[in-house]
């Protein structure tokens, strides 16, 4: 039998059994669509997080006080108190040529009030350097002034949301707000809608790091953001930063350095794994669709016993009957997969319209894998019915027994 005739014959018999075929296509297409859509959502989450990290700043190193890595030696008998990570430590890092900018940070929560209105928000102690490092944009006013970071100064930059809540439609620049018991003059307001790692920048206030240390009575920094000159400089900057701190801390290696890239690739890996998992779970629905194909094809075989007997009487060997029924299964699976891809493309476009900030997009492998799985399920689950058809005894088949 010529392949084209086989295809035409299988297509005709599928078209002949319209309801059955449509149901099968529905099952298959939903299976394929769910694989593609779920992986697209997973991939969207991954892109979202990666995008957020990129906003965080480029060529970034983050230094934390204390050592979080285990070294494998015997546990110390006495608890080691990590040395404070000071502003002086942070500024000393600028000695290294591969380090472009350094921003020491202190973070805490405190009530911020203006007249009778008060809000509990995050207070970030920082320097002028933080603005370029974190790509913070100002809606109005000035960033923190360039000055000696060890000096306190009573100035503040408000998040846009906080400004709205405290001042309403009033002008905020130049006014004095109270943070804990200290007064700060508003010199700038961040632009609206700023977001970083899912944390809203709207509800925060930025003050000079030395002022924050006084405010929270915290001699140690929360962390130090270090920006290397280039991607290639990151390893050098990391080693140098570690060395500088060791020198300053009497030979103790008591800070943890995280490269943003390491963090990023960890997240990337986690989310990729998540995407695969979700895709794998959705693939179960494909297997279910495959079992459905098997059931329906088995019913088809028992309904078409006479036709199979006839084909055999007309000289079709078992192999041909097998091929005919397998072709039907694979056609069903293939058409269902195609339909499913169209369905998922529609759904993804819809999701992109509804949530423009969430980058939903199916990775290329998802539809390919879905179609491949669908076709092989069709083939695999088509084998049993096709074999049953091929092995029918023509005499019994023709007599309807």
């Amino acid at each position, binding site marked *: *039998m010529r392949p084209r*005739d086989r295809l035409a014959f299988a297509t005709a018999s599928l078209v002949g059994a319209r309801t059955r075929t449509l149901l099968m296509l529905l099952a298959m297409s939903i299976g394929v669509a769910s694989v593609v859509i779920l992986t697209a959502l997973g991939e969207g989450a991954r892109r979202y997080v990666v995008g957020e990290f990129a906003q965080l700043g480029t060529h970034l190193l983050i230094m934390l006080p204390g050592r979080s890595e285990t070294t494998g030696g015997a546990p110390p008998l006495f608890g080691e108190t990590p040395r404070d990570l000071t502003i002086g430590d942070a500024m000393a890092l600028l000695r290294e040529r591969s380090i472009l900018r350094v921003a020491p940070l202190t973070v805490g929560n405190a009530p911020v009030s203006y007249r009778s209105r008060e809000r509990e928000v995050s207070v970030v102690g920082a320097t002028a350097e933080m603005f370029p490092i974190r790509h913070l944009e100002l809606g109005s006013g000035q960033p923190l002034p360039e000055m000696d970071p060890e000096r306190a100064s009573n100035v503040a930059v408000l998040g846009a949301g906080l400004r709205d809540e405290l001042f309403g439609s009033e002008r905020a620049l130049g006014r004095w707000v109270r943070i804990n018991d200290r007064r700060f003059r508003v010199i700038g307001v961040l632009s609206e809608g700023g977001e970083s790692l899912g944390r809203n920048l709207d509800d925060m206030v930025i003050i000079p790091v030395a002022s924050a240390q006084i405010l929270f009575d915290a001699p140690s920094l929360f962390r130090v953001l270090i920006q290397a000159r280039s991607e290639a400089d990151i390893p050098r900057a990391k080693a140098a930063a570690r060395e500088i701190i060791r020198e300053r801390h009497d030979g103790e290696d008591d800070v943890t350095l995280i490269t943003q890239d390491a963090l990023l690739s960890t997240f990337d890996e986690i989310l990729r794994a998540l995407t695969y998992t979700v895709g794998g779970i959705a693939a179960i629905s494909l297997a279910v669709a495959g079992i459905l194909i098997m059931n329906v094809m088995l019913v088809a075989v028992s309904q078409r016993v006479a036709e199979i007997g006839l*084909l055999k009487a007309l*000289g079709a*060997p*078992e192999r041909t009957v097998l091929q005919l029924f397998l072709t039907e299964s694979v056609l069903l699976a293939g058409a269902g997969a195609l339909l499913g891809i169209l369905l998922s493309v529609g759904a993804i476009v819809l999701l992109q319209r509804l949530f423009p900030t969430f980058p939903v997009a199916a990775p290329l492998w998802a539809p390919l894998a879905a179609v491949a799985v669908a076709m092989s399920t069709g083939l695999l689950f088509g084998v049993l019915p096709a074999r049953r058809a091929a092995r029918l005894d023509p*005499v019994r088949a*023709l007599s*309807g027994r």
Partner: protein
Amino acid sequence: MIQLEQIARDFPVGDEIVHALAEVDLTLPAGDYVSVMGPSGSGKSTLLNVLGLLDRPNGGRYLLNGTETTTLGEEKRAALRRDHIGFVFQAFHLVPRLSAADNIGLPMILAGVEPRQRAARISEVLASLDLTARAGHRPDQLSGGQRQRVAIGRAIVMRPDLLLADEPTGNLDQHAGGEVIELLERLNATGITLVVVTHDPAIGRRARRRIRMIDGRIDSDEQADAPA
């Protein structure tokens, strides 16, 4: 040329074994016209199925044009069926979704004949059956007699040597049945060996050679002096 030697076919029915065919010897020269009659369960249909290579005997030899068929594999038997044997069934067994022309062309599709050759041969067969006007009709749009003619067209499209008809008029009225028998006899006249299994004595009598079966054995095998 067909030779059956000591053909036996047993079926287990419950604990017993039924001998549907027992020690059947039969030789059909090419172009023979044979009717097979006998009561139900006498083995007529089994004989036809064995002749048509649909059923495999338990014992004996079956030579089709000199080829020993009982030892052949499934694929070779299918190929012999395809190239040398045509079937006509009581229930027509047309494929309902296919047109008359496509039903007739089905054996050629299974045999992998070129589409152009197929089309030429189909229109030839349609014309010889006087069905050209009905070529595009599906079976449910045809009368019983027309359906059986389409089925006969399908049986002869591969130019077989042997035509096997199992109660070909069983589902037809007198008139349509008569037409179908005449058609089969015309084909026999062109040299095709024709074997008709029937209950109808009137049809059985028309054959030049009349075989009567009882309990899986050939009870009588008469040669008519002249065609009725």
